[in-house]
Each structure stands twice: as structure tokens, then as C-alpha cells.
């Protein structure tokens, strides 16, 4: 029998970016807020203490900040004809655990969104016709426009202390010749901090891209170019390019995180409580199934606890949001055969391609330094910035050199053909470690009928609940796009005049490989939209079925973006919070009539 606690105004499941933003907004509105985080408390101190944190074995290899798959994981299969098996080693993606979530271990690339990607289906139908979109591709519009989200992108950047160079501010060009991105959407104010300095490899990419007629720009980064104090009074130190961003706690207070940028302010208010080691099992519904009454969780001592609340915010990692909805009976589960139901549909990912260029010993690249969000990029092939007509695929890729540091265990790359061990490997490592440039095509990924999430019929987690099952594989459109992008990127690499290049792209009929890291940018499964038949949430991230449940996060994206998702996650969360504060709290109920 669960221990029933005193009711609060709002309970938030998960304390990453989405949870922290919601907690800040709802406490500002005067609500009594409890946030439940399944993992431990963690912060810059002591977890990020220098020099202990500069430990690749503990953090990257033994995955200190990531989920323990012996307790909870997902099962994976390529198609409905396969039997899914549990993912017993983290590989392709790295979900975080603990306070800060992915927001603590992320790199710091902090984009907005290309406006057309918010109305993906409408845009492609308008420009290329309905027939251009493959029949099984289920891309949709978000139901919200860039103009509506702009104030929230703007505010989120000020909270994150983002470094970057604007192209236009209120329609006036300010970034020409200074590293601005001519393809970027208009902004209402400049970045709060100037762009970070560029490392040598980024400058090589810039020169090569310019020689091919492309338009290089500074990556917007949530690694600070100088000391910063955000609107909440939270302080950041300056990034020193140590190269330990992704997978680590930043010891310099210079990588934006919920822990550095929001939690200090929340600690000062009496109407907020954060409970770590609180693993939520389900959202509780009343008999009508149209109203949530709170959540049930297992606390650090293994006791079942019920936390009643008027408002439930699911702000867990993308697939945990979807799983909690399925376990709680919120929304109709997706059926890929009938193409009906909403929870689990439009599960999408990222479509990465990588090219590495290797140089003679007289070209130094200093790969050991770097910052997770730092680099030079081009958007000439992102979104719909080029005519897709002749190529027959949907989606685009920003391309960049994002030198985030080459750490000594996993950071060593050698030219193609080098043995993986022995004296030849050692010699190549000595020859190339500081003479190479790695660049990526960080591709958008579309949603398809065959890629979806549901509950596994066989496997259960440590608490006896069904695991989430991923049915996922690369589709023809993905391979086509990836090959196109990798080809363009290879030409940029060739323009640097390297000794050799290594191309890591997708081959025709290639299957999804769970062992090889791609990104942790998983999207969809509990998507927002304008039609309750094809989306789980309305445009304010409110469940169509249980209106006192809101579900912020990349789980709301109907398909994967070309850019990294965090900027859009943050903006959508502020957008949703604003709707709760200004509309929902005055008149609780559906904010959009179905």
C-alpha cells in the first residue's frame, strides 16, 4: 500500500531541462511544485570537481552519468516481423540519469529551429507536391510557428547564456562578415554572449567551405565565451576549451545545465521541492480516465509513495515520457498496421554522417582542445535551403566541424586501413593524433509508419513494469539523404587538401546498429499537433485525453530536426508553461477544443 503524501499543485516527473524550466515557471506562478527525479542528486560540486571529473574511464567508458541498463532499458527490433531484445549495453544513444538529466551531460550545441521544419508536411507539399513525400512517411506540422516561439527561444538563450552571432535582429542584418548564419531565422535580440573563439580545425573548415561557395557561420553554443549572469541571477564561468563536455559535468560552470542555470534560483524559493532517487511508476487517473490525480513512485528506500497533484508534468527523457503515458493509459497506443492511435507514433531519430580528414605533420589541429557547442557550420544543405526536387529525398543537414576535444581512450582516430592495435596503430596514432579534422553532417530524420514505440510483451524492468519496445530501422529516404550529405561533406574535406579521408556514411539497405553511437537525439512518440487523431498533445503540449497532464520534451517533435533538439525543447517548454500560467490556471481544462 502506497504511502499517500499531501497533495501539491504540480508534480513534475524528471528534472532535466524541461522539468527545471517548468519548475521555475510554475513556482513563479505561485504553485507548490514537487519535482521527482529517478536518479541521484548531482551538481557541479562535488560531481564536477576538478580534476576528478576529467576522467574518461569513469565518465565516458563506464558511463557515470547515464542510465543503468541493468535496471531499466528498452527492447529494440528493426521491424514488426522481428522479436525485440533488451538493449543491454548503451551504444547508439546515451540517456542520462540524475538531476540535470541529459542537460547535465550534453555538449552544448544550442540552436533554434529552421522555421520550415515546424511545418514540415505543409512546406514540402506546397513546394514539391504531395506525391514527393513517400507514402509511409508520417511527417507532420508541429502546430506552432517560429514567430510564436521566437520570444521563448530568445528567453531560453538568455537563461542558457548562449554564445553566438546573430545574422539579423528585428530584420536588420548585423552578422554579415562576422560569423552570422545567413540562413538563420530573424531574431528579436542578439545572443547574450558573443560567439566563442574558433579552433584551428574549424578555421580549416571555414576556409574550405568558403572556397566552395558555401556560407560558414559560428555554431551557437551553450558553452560560454565569457563570464555570465542569467535572468535568474545564476552565474556561469567562462569555457576554457578543456574538451570534457559531452558525458561530463562541467567544472568551470561554463556549460549551461539545469543544475547551473536554473536550480540555484529554485533553491531560493519555498514553494519548490526536488526529490532525487524517486522513480515514477505511473500517472494515476481517476475513474473517468480524463483526469490525473497524481503519480506513484518508488523512493530511495524502495517504498511505494503516492504524490497527489492537480497538475502532472511529464518531463522525463523522450522515450520515458512515452512509456509513462503507455503505462498510465493516457492516450490511445499507436497501431502501425491500422495507422491509428497516437502514443508511440512518429518515433524519429537523427541521421548522421561523418568525414575525417588526415593531414601531414606540418598541419596542426590541436584536437585535444575543444568545446561541445563550439565550431563552424554551414546550412547550405540544411532544412530546405536547396532544391530537393532533383534528389528525391526529404530532409536536410547542417554540416560542421564541432571539435569537442579528443580524449585519450575513445578520441583516437586513424586513417582508413590502419590496424586497430599493435605497432602500426601506435605509429599512426603518433603521426595523426594532432593532425586530423573530423566533420559531421548532422541530418534531420523523418518519421515513418514502421518506426514506433510500444510496450514490450516479454521483458520487464527492475520494478516489474514492461520495458518500452522500439521498432526502428533506417528507411530508403534516410539512406538517400545520408549519401547525398556525406558526398557534399567529403568535397569540403577534399578542399582542405588532406593526405587522406575517411567517410562514415550509410550504405544502401543498411540497418540500424545499436552498438555504434550516433546521437542521443531521439524524438517523437508523444507528439504535438492540431488533430487528436494524429497527435497525443495539442499545440501547448497538453494531453488531448487527460487535460491536466502536459508533456514537454523532444517526445513532442513529430520528426527529427536537422539541428540539435535542446533549443527547441527549451523554447517549447517555455511556450507550454506560458499557456499554463496565462490560460490553464485561470480555467483548468483543454486549451484547444478537439
Amino acid at each position, binding site marked *: 500500500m502506497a504511502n499517500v503524501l499531501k497533495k501539491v499543485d504540480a508534480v513534475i516527473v524528471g528534472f532535466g531541462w524541461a522539468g527545471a524550466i517548468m519548475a521555475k515557471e510554475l513556482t513563479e506562478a505561485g504553485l507548490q511544485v514537487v519535482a521527482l527525479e529517478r536518479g541521484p542528486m548531482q551538481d557541479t*560540486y*562535488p560531481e564536477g570537481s576538478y580534476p576528478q571529473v576529467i576522467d574518461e574511464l569513469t565518465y565516458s567508458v563506464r558511463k557515470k552519468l547515464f542510465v543503468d541498463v541493468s535496471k531499466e532499458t528498452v527492447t529494440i527490433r528493426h521491424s514488426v516481423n522481428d522479436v525485440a531484445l533488451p538493449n543491454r549495453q548503451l551504444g547508439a544513444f546515451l540517456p542520462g540519469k540524475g538531476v540535470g538529466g541529459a542537460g547535465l551531460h550534453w555538449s552544448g550545441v544550442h540552436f533554434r529551429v529552421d522555421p520550415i521544419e515546424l511545418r514540415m508536411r505543409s512546406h514540402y507539399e506546397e513546394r514539391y507536391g504531395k506525391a514527393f513525400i513517400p507514402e509511409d512517411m508520417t511527417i507532420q506540422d508541429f502546430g506552432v510557428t517560429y514567430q510564436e516561439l521566437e520570444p521563448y527561444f530568445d528567453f531560453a538563450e538568455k537563461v542558457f547564456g548562449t554564445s553566438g552571432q546573430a545574422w539579423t535582429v528585428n530584420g536588420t542584418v548585423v552578422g554579415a562578415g562576422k560569423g552570422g548564419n545567413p540562413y538563420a531565422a530573424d531574431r528579436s535580440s542578439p545572443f547574450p554572449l558573443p560567439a566563442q573563439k574558433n579552433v584551428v580545425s574549424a578555421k580549416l573548415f571555414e576556409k574550405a567551405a568558403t572556397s566552395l561557395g558555401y556560407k560558414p557561420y559560428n555554431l551557437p553554443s551553450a558553452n560560454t565565451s565569457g563570464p555570465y549572469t542569467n535572468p535568474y*541571477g545564476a*552565474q*556561469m564561468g*567562462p569555457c576554457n576549451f578543456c574538451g570534457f563536455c559531452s558525458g561530463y559535468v562541467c567544472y568551470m560552470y561554463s556549460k549551461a545545465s539545469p543544475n547551473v542555470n536554473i536550480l540555484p534560483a529554485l533553491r531560493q524559493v519555498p514553494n519548490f521541492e526536488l526529490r532525487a532517487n524517486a522513480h515514477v511508476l505511473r500517472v494515476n487517473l481517476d475513474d473517468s480516465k480524463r483526469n490525473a490525480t497524481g503519480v506513484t513512485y518508488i523512493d530511495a528506500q524502495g517504498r511505494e509513495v503516492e504524490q497527489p497533484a492537480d497538475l502532472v508534468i511529464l518531463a522525463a527523457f523522450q522515450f520515458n515520457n512515452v512509456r509513462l503515458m503507455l503505462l498510465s493509459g493516457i492516450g490511445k497506443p499507436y497501431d502501425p498496421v491500422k495507422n491509428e492511435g497516437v502514443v508511440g507514433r512518429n518515433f524519429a531519430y537523427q541521421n548522421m554522417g561523418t568525414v575525417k580528414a588526415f593531414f601531414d605533420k606540418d598541419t596542426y589541429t590541436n584536437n585535444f582542445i575543444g568545446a561541445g557547442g563550439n565550431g563552424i557550420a554551414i546550412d547550405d544543405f540544411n532544412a530546405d535551403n536547396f532544391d530537393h526536387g532533383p534528389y528525391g529525398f526529404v530532409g536536410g543537414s547542417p554540416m560542421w566541424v564541432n571539435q569537442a576535444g579528443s580524449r585519450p581512450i575513445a578520441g583516437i582516430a586513424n586513417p582508413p586501413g590502419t590496424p586497430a592495435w599493435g605497432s602500426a596503430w601506435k605509429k599512426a596514432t603518433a603521426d595523426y593524433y594532432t593532425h586530423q579534422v573530423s566533420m559531421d553532417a548532422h541530418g534531420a530524420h523523418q518519421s515513418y509508419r514502421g518506426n514506433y514505440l510500444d510496450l514490450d510483451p516479454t521483458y520487464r524492468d527492475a520494478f516489474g513494469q514492461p520495458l518500452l519496445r522500439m521498432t526502428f530501422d533506417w528507411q530508403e529516404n534516410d539512406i538517400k539523404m545520408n549519401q547525398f550529405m556525406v558526398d557534399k561533406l567529403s568535397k569540403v574535406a577534399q578542399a582542405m587538401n588532406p593526405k587522406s579521408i575517411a567517410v562514415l556514411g550509410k550504405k544502401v539497405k543498411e540497418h540500424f546498429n545499436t552498438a555504434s553511437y550516433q546521437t542521443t537525439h531521439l524524438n517523437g512518440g508523444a507528439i504535438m499537433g492540431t488533430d487528436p487523431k494524429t497527435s497525443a498533445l495539442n499545440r501547448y503540449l497538453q494531453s488531448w485525453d487527460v487535460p491536466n497532464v502536459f508533456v514537454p520534451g523532444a517526445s513532442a517533435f513529430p520528426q527529427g530536426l536537422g539541428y540539435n533538439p535542446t533549443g527547441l525543447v527549451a523554447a517549447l517548454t517555455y511556450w507550454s508553461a506560458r499557456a499554463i500560467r496565462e490560460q490553464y490556471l485561470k480555467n483548468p481544462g483543454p486549451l484547444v477544443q478537439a
Partner: protein
Amino acid sequence: MKTMLIATALCAASLTAQADSTLIKQGEYLARAGDCVACHTAKGGKPFAGGLPMETPIGTVYSTNITPDASGIGHYSFEDFDQAVRHGVGKDGSTLYPAMPYPSYARVNDEDMRALYAYFMQGVEPVAQPNKATDIPWPLSMRWPLAIWRGLFAPEVKAWQASAAADPVVNRGAYLVEGLGHCGACHTPRALTMQEKALSPQDGEQFLAGSAPLEGWIAKSLRGDHKDGLGSWSEAQLVQFLKTGRSERSAVFGGMSDVVEHSMQYMSDADLTAIARYLKTLPASNPDDKPHVYDKQVAQALWNGDDSKPGASVYIDNCAACHRTDGHGYTRVFPALAGNPVVQTADATSLIHVVLAGGTVPATHTAPSNLTMPAFGWRLSDQEVADVVSFIRTSWGNQGGAVKAGEVAKLRTDDMKHTSGDDLGQVTTH
């Protein structure tokens, strides 16, 4: 005499009724200014219920319960309260240990005393918690010598006289610093007989001239010296520091962290300005004191890869990421070391302590980030700490002296043990 008695009786009558909430609020503010909570609350204990152990040269005394419970001061009349706070005499007639800064509180005016009394009687939650006896052995535990001490060193309680010449803001500052703020309790050196050597500038230039080590920290000079006082600090920086625990080039540490967190951050900007302006009127102790002159030699040597100066390589490996090779740190987040008075004090205890144990800037309402410097004692030997501390004290134009390994060894406590660093700090006890 008669009218005074009547007046007192009337006051008592109105206080036994409800003191008005403005008075209670004012009292709360003044209790913050006096930082009563700091000593009268045990670690993890209820506010003002006492029980905090305080080391004295003759043994440990415990702060008392000052909540309005019968086990606290619930039965205190205003006169009893006043006797304790301003005169140092308890209700039973015994003299209080001067851990209670009644020599400073003697300057508090009657009006503020009334407000404090109203707050402690009606604004504080009563807590039933008996007071703890001291651990002082007989015969030192006898209290009568304290009365003699009090007679010798505690000033007469009389209405505080503003200096007619000074600006009213400075006068307000003097009232707060010399009175409720009891800054001298830590920042003024004490004589062998433990009294503060000066309770005001009129008592001489020892006033707020910095203390001997106290619980492992130096309470530095607040006088006008550039080298180790507040000479290089502007009034605005001082206000920022007291309000938020940090300024452009400094961060609070040691015992002052608690003062910022529990007391100073609650002061009005006007009072903080008054405190700062008053402190800035105190002249330098050293007549030859000069402003810091930055010397770029060390920064240039480090930039050129020359770490031959003793301590330089330890500094690069452990300190430079935040404090920079030029010693300037980063505005508001990582304090400057170049020209920083706390690294140039004659006694290097504070700097050694910070290197060994690290430090956390307290979170305040207007600056909520509790920026933390991690401890380095676990990975640096006594000699390495001495080297890096000496390096910091003598680089970039700093005029502090060198430090020896033995001084470091003396300051290491069990939680600052050197583990050689072979465990990378994951395990701190061997």
C-alpha cells in the same frame, strides 16, 4: 525617577499586549543585523534554540536558547533581556561569557532594544530545549572572575553618540558596525585577556585591524590598507560583497560566508552603503601602505611556458583554469588573486586553508549560485601547498611572504588529509 518608572510600566503593559507588527518586523531586521541566529542555532537545530558549541581558550561553551519558551527567555522581562544583551548579565545575575558580544551590543539604542525584545517574544517560534552546561572544568568554570572582566572591559551602556562632524550615512554605519554588527568580535585583534583591543576608532588603530587565526581562518583587516585591508575596495564593491558574497574580484569564504548568508544579505541597500562608507573612513594601519602595482613578469613567464618559479607548475595544474595565469580570475565568478588583500595578509592561514579545503560562496537571494572551489588538500603535499601559496603571495605584484610546509601541516585536519592523489580523489579516507 517616578516618571521613568511610569514610562517603563506603560511600555511593559503595551508589550504584554501585542507589540505591533511593524515593531516585530523591525526587531527581526535588527536580529538579522546582529546575526543572532548564527551563534544561537546549533547545526541542524531549530532557529534560536541554542546549543552551538563555541571553543574558548578555557573550554567549550554552548550558546543558549533565546526562544520565548520557558527553557529559553520566555520569562524574561524587557529589563532582563536588556541586562543580558547590553550589559552581559544573565537573569540569575551571573555574567555571560563574552562569546556573547555584549561589549558591542552596549551601543544599541533603547528603541532598537525594544524592537528586538518584541521580535524575540512574539516573532520567534518557542522551542523547548534546555541549555547545555559548559565543558569548562573547575575552577575555571567559576563565573565570578567574568564579572571582573566585564567591569574592566565592557563599556558603559549609554545612548550612542553620533559624531557631529560625520555624514549621517557614516554615523549610521558606525552604529551598525560598532554595535549590532559586532564586526570587531572577529576582525579586531584581542588582548591576552581576550577583550577586543578597540571597540571603536576612538580606541585606537587596532580597531578592525584583523584577527589572529580563528577556527582556521583569518578575519582580515577592514582598515584602509591596500595590501591586506579594504584600501583597494570601492564602496560599491563592498556593498555587493556584503549583499551577495561576491564582487567583481572577490568571493567570501570562511566564517564570513555565514555572516553574508544569514545576516548581511537581508540588510537594506541603505544600511549596506552606510556600513561600507563607514568602513572606508578607517585609515590604513601601515603608514607606508601603497596601492597594488600589477607586475606582469610572472604572467609572461607562464605564457612563455616557463614554470621554473617554485609553485608555478602546481599553480598551472590546479589553479590557473579559473584564476588564470595572469592572476586576474574572471569577473564575479572566479576571484582575482593579483592584488587580493586576503592572499597578502601577514599570516597566510586563510589562503592555505582555502587551498586545502576549498570553499563555497553561499547562495543568496540575489546571487543564488553557490560557486564552489574544490579541495586540493587530498592531492597536494604540504610542500606543494606551501609552494603554490608562496607563489600566489609573491606573484603579479603581491606583497605577501613565503610559507613553509610546516605551516600547512599544522592546518591539516582529518578531513583535509593528503592521499597522494593516487585514488584521484574518489576515496578520501585511507
